[in-house]
Each structure stands twice: as C-alpha cells, then as structure tokens.
C-alpha cells in the first residue's frame, strides 16, 4: 500500500541523512562495538527500506484494490510499474554488485601491495609475521594475507619508539588482523565508492574506520600496557603530524589514558534489538504487502 511505501521511503531518508549526521556529530566511543553494530544496521536497513519501498510501489495495482482483484495478472502492470520494478532491481543489484566489485578491486590492490612488500621488506629477526621496511617515515600497518597476516614496520618507527612501545603498536596491528577488521570496513568502503554523492556513506565509512582503531586499541590492551600504546600513539602523531589525524589520536589517547569503561549491558541489549528491528522490518513489510495481493 501507498502508506507502507511512503513510510519505508521516509525511513530510508532518515537513515541516509539525519541519523548519520547525528552520529557523526556525537562520535562517542564508550562502547565502540555497539556503535559499530548500529552503523552496520543503518547501512543495511537504508538499502533494504529503499528497495522494499520501490518494490511495493511497483506492485501497487495488485495491492490497491480490496477483495479479489480482477486484474490479478502481470498485464495489470502499466509502464510506470515496470519502471519501478526495474528501478528496484537496479538499486538492489547496484548495492550488491558494488560489494563484489570492491572486493575484487581490494584483492587486486592487496596482491600488488604484497608483491611490493615481498621485494622491499625484510622479515623481522625478533617478531613473527612481521616485516621491516627501510624508510624514515613512521609506518606501521597490517596486510591481511595468509593464515596470520603480515605486520609491516618501518625502520623509522623502530628508531623512534622504545621496544615496549613498538610491541604495543604490533599488538594493535595484530588486533586488526585477528578481528578481521578489513571485512568490517569492506561494505562501508564499497558503498562509499558506489554512492559518492551520499554524505552518509562518507560519514559512515569515516566513523567505522575510527571505531575499529579504538577497538584495536581495546584488544591490544589485554596483552600490552595501555601506557605504552598511548606513548606510541602520541609519538607517532607528533612526528608524523601530516599523516595521522589529530582528532583520532586525541580520541584514542583519551581512552587509553583511563581504565576501559565497562560497557552497559542494558545499552548493548537495546542496541541489538534496535539494530535487528531496523534490518528486519523493511523486508517483512514488503513481504506482507506483496503477499496480501
């Protein structure tokens, strides 16, 4: 019915604009895992509600008439219905194909990068699954490849940090690898690529990449002292001001300098319920509407 279609469209608009804006304005990271789940729900529900709305509108002639509709065949669909069906299918296809295309692009880039790393870096004598790149810049990053992944450290970083600080940085990178953060980022990066005109896509990607930094710190703190990690973050942002975001460094430092806040169980449950409701409702509404034909 028209009403559900309008409602779902409104939901899509709210999820695509005011909500991400609000989220971006208050980037609190008390419970980054809950925040991340909400972002995932927003992204998924946004796409689902828009697609569902278009499909409901497309099949309106079937659903509009009460009682057994006499035009219960596909011939009852006029040109604009077909246009909407096409639009809905194209939308869904675009969102899904952008994931695949992005995955392929990332794989290609990663393969090229791994080839560069193989010829330009040397395996570390001390640290497992770690390679050393001879440059003065402070560089630490991880490459998801093979069973354990590879952490790359620069000689500049090793010279600038104490061994304890370096170990803290490695623990942070290994947390990214263990938590498969590259898969968390993938859909957001894909949709940002597919919908560059949508500010929400950019904001979502931006916030999610920040959240995984904080989450990697949280994981690293289980094995290394938070003070060492904080000292490393401070040193890296000081020496490489151009490459490290000051706001993100400040955010990480603020969290590292205090004991980890205990996540509230009530808040978590609420977030899980809201996220599930957001994702499940649009398809359920669409199925109910289309079944009532």
């Amino acid at each position, binding site marked *: 019915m028209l009403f559900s279609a309008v409602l779902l469209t409104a939901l899509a608009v709210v999820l695509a604009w005011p909500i991400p804006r609000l989220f971006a304005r208050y980037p609190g990271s008390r419970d980054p895992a809950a925040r991340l789940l909400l972002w995932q729900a927003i992204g998924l529900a946004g796409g689902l509600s828009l697609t569902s709305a278009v499909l409901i509108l497309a099949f309106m002639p079937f659903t509009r008439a009460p009682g057994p509709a006499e035009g219960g065949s596909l011939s009852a669909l006029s040109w604009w219905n077909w246009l909407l069906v096409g639009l809905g299918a194209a939308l869904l296809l675009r969102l899904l194909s952008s994931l695949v295309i*992005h995955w392929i*692009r*990332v794989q290609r*880039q*990663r393969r090229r*990068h791994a*080839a*560069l*790393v*193989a*010829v*330009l870096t*040397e*395996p570390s004598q001390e640290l497992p699954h770690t390679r050393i*790149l*001879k*440059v003065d*810049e402070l*560089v630490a*990053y*991880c*490459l*998801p490849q093979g069973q354990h992944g590879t952490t*790359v450290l620069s000689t500049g970083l090793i010279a600038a940090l104490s061994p304890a600080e370096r170990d803290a940085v490695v623990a942070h990178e290994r947390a*990214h690898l263990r938590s498969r*953060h*590259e898969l968390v*980022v*993938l859909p957001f*990066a894909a949709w*940002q*690529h597919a919908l560059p005109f949508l500010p929400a896509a950019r904001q979502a*990607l*931006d916030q999610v*990449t*920040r959240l*995984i*930094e904080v989450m990697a710190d949280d994981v690293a703190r289980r094995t290394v002292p938070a003070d060492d990690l904080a000292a490393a973050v401070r040193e890296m942002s000081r020496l490489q001001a*151009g*490459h*490290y*975001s000051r*706001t*993100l*460094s400040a955010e990480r430092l603020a969290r590292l300098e205090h004991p980890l806040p205990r996540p509230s169980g009530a808040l978590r449950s609420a977030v899980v319920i809201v996220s599930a409701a957001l994702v499940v409702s649009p398809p359920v509404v669409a199925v109910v509407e289309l079944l009532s034909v």
Partner: protein
Amino acid sequence: MATLGELERSVMNALWNSVDGMTAADLRVALADRDLALTTVHTVLTRLEKKGFARRDRSERPHRYLALSTREEHVAELMNEVLDQASDRQAVLARFLGTVSDSDTAFLSRLLQRRGADS
C-alpha cells in the same frame, strides 16, 4: 630453505645494484651462497617480469635482465598506498588497501622528488 619471495627479493637487490643488468648466469654467481639451480633463477626472473619488477633485454644472447624501476620508485609507490596524507583517519583506509584513491599521484611525485634530492 629460502622461499620464492625471499629469492625474488635477493634477485631484485642484485638487479638494483647492477649497472647494466645481469644474465641468469650472472645472478646465479652473485647469489652463490644460496646454491641455486639455473632453472630456479629463471623461474624467479619470470615471476619478477610478470609482476612488473624486471624486464628482459632480448637484443643479445643470453638475455639480460634489468630492474624496471629503481628501488626508491617502488618504495614511493608503497608509501603512497600506506600514507593517506589528506585523510582524517590515520591511514587505516590505506592499511586495508581498499579506498586509497587511484588518482592520488601528487603525493607520489612529491615523495619521489624528495627522495631524488636526498640521493
């Protein structure tokens, strides 16, 4: 037992150090401490050629192999992917190599210039 990746690195280092390229036999001598079979050297060279690190000069026999770019150029390529200079998100995008803009060549050329001035 050295992996193929390590051999590729050794061969590239030898090629980067050579002035006018090396034949597979030259490389086998240069890497004598590894005691490589000539076929292994050929395998590694073919892989490096495919990956765009080395090229073959076929004008004389035996073929000579040369590095396609300098080591510094490749380091600059790598660094360009790793350091996302304008970003507000701590190189994490580059870290996962999913969203580095393909057109971001300004930084690359700046890095190259700086390295050129250093040497």
